[in-house]
């Protein structure tokens, strides 16, 4: 069942889902497993990780040793095809010329979208994260608390498979027994950092990542996830049995042909297709949502990129999951007499309060890691441990000068050699070459550690997107223009990150590489540009008050009762936790609501 062409689309779908990533994949999964007929539209091509993932190719057989180029911006072997910071014929603009006020937008036009290459970090938001305004007076509360969303976190973790541990730390939720998979053992560099960081009062615990460290329990999990639904249980048991456990080789960002990690294309879409209830039209660039005379969404108009023709498809309900900003773009481009400023925009808030994650980082060379006995450190193809935010008390007491926290992702070690291996070590080697240089490369290989802060941004009036009044893409669809602003909270938080990382590197006996953060030029803050962390959320803020929000507590627009946003667009805040798991939990919950409305015949 099937990937179809535009001409094969049927006339009687229950729901059109726009987008096939974490949000679209979860929405389609939940709907089709419960019997709804779904048409999924994806702007990029069909993509099959089982056949297309370069699992063991070393960099010597890649063009340019695998280095990134404008065509493959995250490196040749990164899973992303037809994607990146820039897409030919699909521009976006920035309102300000100021480099510090730019937003950069990573898009992936392919089935599964950005889930094909993501880091697989799957952290839950905690109780504080849904009520930030109540806690410190800034930003917005969500219209529900952690307890409301927790069962959906449980279900998503059981479905996709997440390794991790329950550590009982503040605002860092545990999962119920039997839900998480066992975490992998920490690597040498991770253990060394943990030793020093623990002495500094910074906790280091197993990270949660969507990678199977053992096979999924296909006998018991399906019944827990789909009670009373034997067909769904059967379909899911088969899908789960087709996923292998990690075999501790190859980086996850290439994708995974054995389906050991989560990507929508290997985890959400196969069972959804197997139900017989899902059709997918790839190469379908959605332009707008259409309305019927009653003011309900009745379908979408898209450009078929293969034929260049405009197509119209119909359904009883529409779920946008095109990525937060792309979904906003579709709404703003859906203008009608009823909604002259864009669909579901009676509040005027569509496109407002877009958010990314605060990013700051530092790299160090750690002499203790020199000349370690050779051993295999590939592990689960990504991080095994991390540090959750640890200064809640100091922060609430006003001692830090910024309101929200960050977690630390870090690593190093003897990974697969790449184009940069052996490069840039002049400062240690005084420019050696020849046999001495070979010895130096052996000595320094595996001794570099990176530390990245991932922090919460507070929504502000200066960070939004709107339609550019002039610019259009190659299909004539108006594009987004971004405005971006970091507040002092984010800038101070990023300074705190780099100061902390410098202290950690010093505690490990290491040397900072690159610019010393304490000697940074005035006016250049150690914070990455908006969008660079690729945690784009917000733009259709969720809330309890129709005048102050775009979506209701079910991620459904207040204005159009059969139109849902099931990507990151409804986020009212963007906790330091990576957003993907929360996107999936919200999408599952929204799809449950949509199913109930369909059953009731509400539209």
């Amino acid at each position: 069942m099937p990937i179809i062409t535009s001409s094969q689309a049927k006339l009687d779908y229950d729901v059109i889902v726009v987008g096939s990533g974490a949000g679209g994949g979860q929405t389609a999964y939940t709907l089709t497993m419960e019997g709804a007929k779904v048409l999924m539209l994806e702007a990029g091509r069909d993509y099959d990780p089982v056949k297309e993932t370069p699992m063991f190719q070393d960099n010597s057989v890649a063009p340019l040793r695998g280095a990134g180029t404008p065509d493959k911006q995250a490196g040749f072997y990164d899973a992303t095809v037809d994607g990146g910071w820039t897409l030919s014929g699909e521009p976006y603009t920035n309102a300000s010329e100021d480099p510090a006020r730019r937003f950069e937008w990573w898009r992936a036009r392919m089935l599964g979208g950005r889930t094909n290459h993501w880091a697989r970090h799957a952290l839950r938001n905690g109780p504080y994260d849904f009520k930030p305004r109540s806690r410190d007076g800034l930003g917005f509360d969500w219209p529900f608390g952690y307890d409301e969303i927790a069962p959906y976190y449980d279900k998503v973790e059981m479905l996709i498979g997440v390794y991790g541990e329950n550590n009982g730390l503040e605002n860092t939720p545990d999962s119920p027994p039997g839900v998480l998979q066992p975490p992998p053992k920490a690597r040498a560099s991770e253990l060394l950092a943990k030793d020093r960081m623990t002495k500094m009062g910074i906790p280091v615990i197993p990270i949660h990542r969507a990678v199977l460290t053992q096979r999924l329990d296909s006998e018991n999990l399906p019944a827990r996830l789909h009670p009373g639904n034997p067909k769904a249980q059967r379909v899911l048991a088969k899908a789960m049995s087709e996923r292998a456990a990690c075999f501790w080789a190859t980086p996850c960002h290439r994708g995974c042909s054995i389906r050991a990690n989560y990507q929508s294309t290997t985890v959400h879409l196969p069972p959804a297709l197997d139900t017989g209830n899902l059709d997918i039209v790839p190469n379908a660039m959605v332009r707008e949502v259409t309305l019927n005379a009653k003011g309900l969404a009745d379908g979408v108009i898209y450009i078929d990129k293969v034929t260049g023709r405009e197509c119209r498809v119909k359904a009883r309900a529409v779920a946008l999951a095109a990525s937060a900003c792309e979904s906003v773009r579709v709404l703003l481009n859906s203008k009608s007499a009823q909604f002259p400023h864009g669909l579901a925009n009676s509040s005027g808030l569509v496109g407002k309060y877009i958010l990314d994650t605060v990013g700051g980082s530092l790299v160090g060379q750690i002499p203790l890691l020199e000349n370690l006995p050779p051993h295999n450190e590939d592990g689960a193809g990504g991080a095994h441990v991390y540090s959750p935010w640890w200064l809640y008390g100091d922060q609430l007491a006003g001692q830090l000068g910024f309101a929200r926290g960050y977690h630390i992702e870090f690593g190093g070690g003897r990974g697969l050699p790449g184009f940069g291996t052996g490069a840039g070590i002049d400062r240690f080697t005084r420019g050696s070459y020849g046999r001495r240089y070979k010895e130096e490369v052996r000595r320094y290989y595996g001794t570099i550690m990176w530390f990245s802060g991932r922090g919460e941004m507070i929504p502000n009036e200066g960070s939004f997107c709107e339609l550019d009044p002039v610019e259009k893409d190659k299909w004539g669809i108006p594009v987004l223009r971004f405005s971006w602003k970091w507040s002092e909270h984010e800038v101070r938080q990023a300074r705190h990150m780099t100061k902390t990382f410098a202290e950690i590197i010093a505690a490990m006996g290491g040397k900072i590489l690159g610019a010393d953060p304490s000697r940074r030029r005035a006016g250049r803050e150690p914070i990455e540009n908006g969008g660079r962390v690729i945690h784009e959320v917000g733009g259709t803020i969720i809330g309890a008050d129709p005048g102050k929000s775009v979506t209701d507590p079910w991620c459904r627009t207040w204005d159009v009762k059969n139109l849902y946003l099931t990507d990151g667009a409804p986020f009212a805040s963007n906790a330091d936790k990576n957003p993907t798991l929360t996107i999936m939990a919200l999408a599952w919950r929204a799809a449950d609501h949509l199913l109930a409305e369909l059953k009731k015949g509400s539209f």
Partner: protein
Amino acid sequence: MSTTPHYSRLDRRTAVKWMLTAAASAVALGRTPLGAAMAGAAKPAGKGYGTDPDLMKEYKPGDLWPLTLSDAQRRTAAALCAAIIPADAESPSAASVGVHDFIDEWISAPYPDQQRDRPVVLDGLAWIDAEARRRFSRDFADLDEHQAAAICDDVCHAPDAKPEFAGAAKFFARYRDLTAGGFYTTPVGMKDLKYIGNTPLPEFKGPPPEVLQKLGLA
């Protein structure tokens, strides 16, 4: 449209390698005229591999875009690769595994980073050959180890280089990074580093006791 391309380093290990490389290339970009402008420094003719290349295929230099180096340039390039990474007890030389052909692929690529390196490398190869002839009346590729070292010693560390060698030192630093990137990604280069991953394992055991002991974590 006012976006600038940046190449995301999503994988953090790659990120680190790239931060190091970027630091190195920033130095190389301050291009100093090294010698006569080269006929071959014209822009490369080929197209890139596009945004949806076949990732499963094995590529070699020349498969995707035409290469640049003449036989004489290639000989110099190989000799310099061998001077930077010669054979030793652990592994063969960079030249013996064709790293100069990777460098040719690199400077022939129709992408901005590589096009910035192109004149640096072509002018640098011309300079080092001219310098060999000036000092020893021979091509660089025909120098003995001591003669080659006499030239390399003058340019191998930019902060120590005399002013007249400043441009050549920038070239040398960039060429060393390209040689390393080319060499350590090959099977013999990975073996030299004692990288033993990229192979399926039944379980991940974490670091062995001798590693923990060395780190004081046992």
